[in-house]
C-alpha cells in the first residue's frame, strides 16, 4: 500500500458517500484524519507479520480493527453514514 493509493481510496470513498470534511493524510505511519467539525475520525493501515491491519477510531473514540479493505470501508461507512445501510452484493445462482 502506497500513500498515494491510500489517499485515492479514502478520498474516493468520501466522494461516493458525499462526505465533506477536512482531511489530513500522513505517510508514516500510513493514515489520515477526517475532521468532522470539532471531532475527528482516524484511519490507519499497516502490514504486520500476520497480515493487513486497518484501524479506525470513530467519533465515539472507540477503536475498530479490520483485516481487509472491504471490512474497513464497511465500518467507515457505518461511522460516517449511520443512517445509510450498506448495500450487499447478491450473486444469482
Amino acid at each position, binding site marked *: *500500500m502506497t500513500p498515494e*493509493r491510500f489517499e*485515492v*481510496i479514502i*478520498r*474516493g*470513498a468520501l*466522494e*461516493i*458517500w*458525499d462526505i465533506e470534511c477536512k482531511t489530513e493524510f500522513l505517510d508514516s505511519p500510513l493514515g489520515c484524519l477526517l475532521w468532522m467539525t470539532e471531532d475527528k475520525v482516524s484511519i490507519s493501515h499497516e*502490514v504486520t507479520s500476520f*497480515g*493487513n491491519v486497518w484501524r479506525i477510531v470513530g467519533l465515539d473514540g472507540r477503536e475498530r480493527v479490520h*483485516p*481487509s*479493505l*472491504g471490512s474497513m*470501508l*464497511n465500518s467507515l*461507512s457505518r461511522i460516517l453514514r449511520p443512517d*445509510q445501510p*450498506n*448495500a*450487499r*452484493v*447478491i*450473486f*444469482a*445462482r
Partner: protein
Amino acid sequence: MIERSLETIDPVEITVLSGFLGSGKTTLIRTLLERPDLERTAVIINEFGEIGLDHELIESSEEDLVELSTGCICCVMRGDLQEAIERLMLRQQTGRVFDRIILETTGLADPGPILHSLIYNEYLKPLVRLDRVVITVDALSGLNSIANFKECPQQIALADIILITKADIDPTNVDDLRRELRRINPEAFIYKSNFGMTEVDLFSLNGQQIEKISENGIDEHSHHHTHSDLYSISFRRKRPIKAVTLTLFLETLAQVLGQNLVRLKGIVYLEESLKTPAVIHGVQHVFHPMSWMADWSGEEPETRLVLIGRKFSLDWVGAVLETIEEEVAQTIS
C-alpha cells in the same frame, strides 16, 4: 398465486423493452408482432396510471397479451409481474405455445429492479431466461430527456441494444445523441429505428454477441462524462485475477457504491481458468451467474470491464482492486 405445477415447462426467453415516455416502444412492438417469425411471442405491457391505453394500440391475440395497469412494475408490480408470467406459462400447458416474451415497461421505469426479479426471483428463474434489454431513445427529445430525467440515462445504462427512434423526422441530433449514448453505455449495440423498422433485426444478435464487450466501447483506461450524472469507466488488465479477488472486489464495489453502481459488465482473465474467459454481468448489486466463453478467439487474454454509474473514478476502482489483490496474496503466502 397460481397453484398448478409449472415444473415441467422449459424456460422461455424474455426480452425487456424499455425507453422514456413517448420514445416509440409501442410502435416497435406493433411492428414486431406483424412479423411471421415472431408469431409465437407473448407480450406483457405495464402502464403507469389508472387507465391503461397502450394495449389498445397493439393489435394482437388477446390471449397472449397481459396488461398490468395498477402501477409501475419497478415500484410495486413485481408480484403482479410474477403472476403475469405464471399465467402465460400455464398456457404452454394448454396448447397455446409461444417461445418468446416481450415485457414492455413504463416510460418512467427503472429497469434495474425488474431485471433483478427476472434474474434472482426463485420462482421466476425456472420459468424465464432474460435474453436481452432493448431501450428506445427518441432522436427528437432524447438529449433533453437524458439531461433532465434521471430515469432516461438509467434505462440507457442497462441496455444491451439501444434503438434511436424518430431519426427520420429530424436527423439533426442523431450524431450528438449517438455520442451521448456511447458515453453512458459504451458496450451497447446502437441502431436506428423508424416506425418500428429497425436497421438490424433485434433478434438476430445471438447471446454470445450480446455478452461480448464491443471493442468500440473499451478504450484503454477511459472515463467518459455525459450530460447526465451517469458515466462509464472501462479498464483493461493483462495480469490474471484470482477468483477470490474478483469476488471480494465485486462485493466491495457493491457495498461502497450502492445505488451509484448501475451496471458492471465484462470479461475476466481468471487465474483459475486461463484459457476460457469468464463473463460477468451485474445490474446494481445483483450479479448474474458467471458464464464462460469457449476461448479468447485469437485475442490476447486480458480482463476488460465496463462500469456505469456515478461518483466513482477509474483511479479509485483500480486502487481498490490492487489493494484486494495484495491482501489476498498476503493471506495465501
